[in-house]
């Protein structure tokens, strides 16, 4: 029972006990909430940055892809000069101009045989594949390419290849059916036959470990021999080949062409894509000011003297060489801007009227009683007041209002190399997305500063247009020292600025970039 009395006593007195906490508790909570809000604000910024980065990555990827698609075309032309010249020469031929064909065919022969040697040596150098394999493959290719091209003249030849009949049989058929073009066809047969013979030779040689490089030469000799043979001989030769059932593994040989070409392309690409990317840190003193006289804070400060501050920007820059002259670059930079409004007077008032508060500023709790005015306007007011009360002392302090704001800057810029030597000169142009991360307005008087609040008319995200000149100096193969004076014109920094405030920043960015 007695213990219940204690419980009852406390329940009666303390159960619904409440007490209003001191005012500073809310101030402390509000300030903690502000900090949390700022921290939270960082997350969406990173999301946005992530978005920007991924868009950039996609753009670069597409650029890269386009580049890689274009490159093989040139490589193909370079490395396969022989066959492509064959097609260029052969395709215009029509039955009316068939007389010209033998000559063409002999051209083809020469080109092909020469090329086969070239390719052999080139490929050995580029791919470091054992000589035997390369020789046999190039041997096959040099024979197969004309084999594929030449039948283009007569469609039957092509069809016969597709239907897996032997080249020899088909060509025999063709020579029998069309006497008028027999000579030409025989020449073609020479080509086909020669090629087939070489294919067979190549197949046989494939298994041998003797000097395979001689294969191309042997093939060339064979071509020369074939050229002396009559069509009939060729047909009989062909039959012999057929009878011995040494058939050309056409599918395999066709495959080898396509396998070969990409292999070379990859090698060429890996060489041409060297050091396309660069990355490096950058730091710059930046000066922030306005092109016009307006005030970002309030119209009453329009005529006040103002001065920009010099702050710092630092960050990381990544760039991609689109071409030898053109470079696309981005990165992320932390940049602080500062802007002073001079000749302001401020005083504390217990009953600060709401109309005396500056709309563009969210006051901190402790500064809600501050009345900030331009010295010129307050001087006029003071003159009228002091006329009434001569003894009154001026309670206000003269000082300046410092507006500070910081951004995360993500530039997307193009640089064009005017000079591209050890000492380079670039022209730079682009835009930056600026994400607000810091925003404060401070009152300073005689070395004492007080936090006034934060501007509510600064946009969370704004853009700037950037233009500049870049000087670069290459140190070795992998490193470049940069110096870039940049002018950045801010497009939509303030949502509600007085007097057409047009801010800009000037920075001299210096840094190192590393190629990789």
């Amino acid at each position, binding site marked *: 029972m007695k213990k219940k009395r204690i419980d009852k006593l406390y329940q009666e007195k303390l159960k619904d*006990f409440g007490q209003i906490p*001191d005012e500073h*508790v809310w101030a402390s909570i509000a300030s*903690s909430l502000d900090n949390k809000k700022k921290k939270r604000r960082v997350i969406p910024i990173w999301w946005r940055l992530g978005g920007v980065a991924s868009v950039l990555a996609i753009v670069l990827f597409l650029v890269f892809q386009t580049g890689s698609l274009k490159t093989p075309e040139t490589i193909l032309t370079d490395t396969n000069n022989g066959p492509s010249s064959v097609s260029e020469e052969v395709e215009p031929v029509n039955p009316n101009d068939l007389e010209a064909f033998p000559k063409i065919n002999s051209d083809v022969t020469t080109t092909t045989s020469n090329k086969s040697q070239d390719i052999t040596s080139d490929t050995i150098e580029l791919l470091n594949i054992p000589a035997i394999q390369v020789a046999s493959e190039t041997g096959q290719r040099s024979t197969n390419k004309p084999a594929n091209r030449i039948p283009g003249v007569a469609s039957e030849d092509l069809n016969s290849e597709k239907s897996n009949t032997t080249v020899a049989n088909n060509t025999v058929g063709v020579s029998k059916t069309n006497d008028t073009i027999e000579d030409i066809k025989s020449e073609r047969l020479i080509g086909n036959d020669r090629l087939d013979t070489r294919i067979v030779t190549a197949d046989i040689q494939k298994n041998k470990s003797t000097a395979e490089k001689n294969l191309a030469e042997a093939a060339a000799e064979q071509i020369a021999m074939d050229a002396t043979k009559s069509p009939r001989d060729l047909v009989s030769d062909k039959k012999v080949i057929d009878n011995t059932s040494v058939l050309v593994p056409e599918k395999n040989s066709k495959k080898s062409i396509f396998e070969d070409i990409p292999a070379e392309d990859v090698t060429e690409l890996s060489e041409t894509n060297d050091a396309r990317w660069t990355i490096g840190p950058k730091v710059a003193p930046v000066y922030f000011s306005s092109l016009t006289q307006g005030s970002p804070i309030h119209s009453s400060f329009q005529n006040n003297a103002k001065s920009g501050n010099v702050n710092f920007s630092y960050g990381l820059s990544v760039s991609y060489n689109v071409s030898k002259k053109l470079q696309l670059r981005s990165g992320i930079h932390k940049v602080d801007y500062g802007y002073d409004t001079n000749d302001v007077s401020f005083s504390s008032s217990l009953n600060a009227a709401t109309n005396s508060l500056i709309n563009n500023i969210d006051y901190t709790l402790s500064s809600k009683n501050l009345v900030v005015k331009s010295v010129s306007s307050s001087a006029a007011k003071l003159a009228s007041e002091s006329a009434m009360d001569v003894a009154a002392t001026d309670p206000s302090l003269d000082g300046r209002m410092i507006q500070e704001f910081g951004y995360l800057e993500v530039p997307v810029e193009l640089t064009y190399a005017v000079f591209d030597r050890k000492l380079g000169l670039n022209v730079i142009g682009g835009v930056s997305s600026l994400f607000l991360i810091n925003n404060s307005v401070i009152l300073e008087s005689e070395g004492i500063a007080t936090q006034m609040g934060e501007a509510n008319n600064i946009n969370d995200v704004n853009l700037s247009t950037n233009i500049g000149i870049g000087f670069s100096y290459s140190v070795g193969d992998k490193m470049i020292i940069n110096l870039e004076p940049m002018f950045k014109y801010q497009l939509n920094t303030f949502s509600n600025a007085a007097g057409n405030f047009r801010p800009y920043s000037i920075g001299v960015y210096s840094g190192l970039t590393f190629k990789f």
Partner: protein
Amino acid sequence: MSLKKLIQHCKKGDRKAQEQLYRKYASILFGLCLKYSRNKTEAEDNLHDSFLTIFEKIDQFKFKGSFEGWIKRITVNTVLQKYRKDQYLKLVTENTEEEAEVDYEFADIQLSTLLQYVQELPTKYRLTFNLYVLDGYTHKEISEMLGTSQGTSKSNLSRARMILRERIKKENINIA
């Protein structure tokens, strides 16, 4: 603004709404914090932390049940979490339930004095007494909340009562 609207605005992070909510419930929660804390400063700290938690988790309040009950639970939990870190919460069960009881009449003791006595209780006793006597938690719940056994909870309560009784008795004598 209705409570629902106020909460909805708080969910959006509206600072004015947060301040209004704070003003509405600060008194109740500060009273709660004062009872669970050792002194005013500590209570203010606890209130601060509690409101931060409330604003942080207000999204989780789905308008089911009383909002006041919800924020009180958050406050109690915030305080308990703080003191749970103190190792001295764990007590060996002691059977001190039946103490010799001196019969006396309660004089008109000031609320502030009663509060002071509670605040001066050792943490383990203070929390148990508050939870059981003033906030209606069972020993099972208290043992779970404090990470002790039910026996310990009962013992702590008994100790708390005994200490408070002694203090009140002394106060009575002084008054007399």
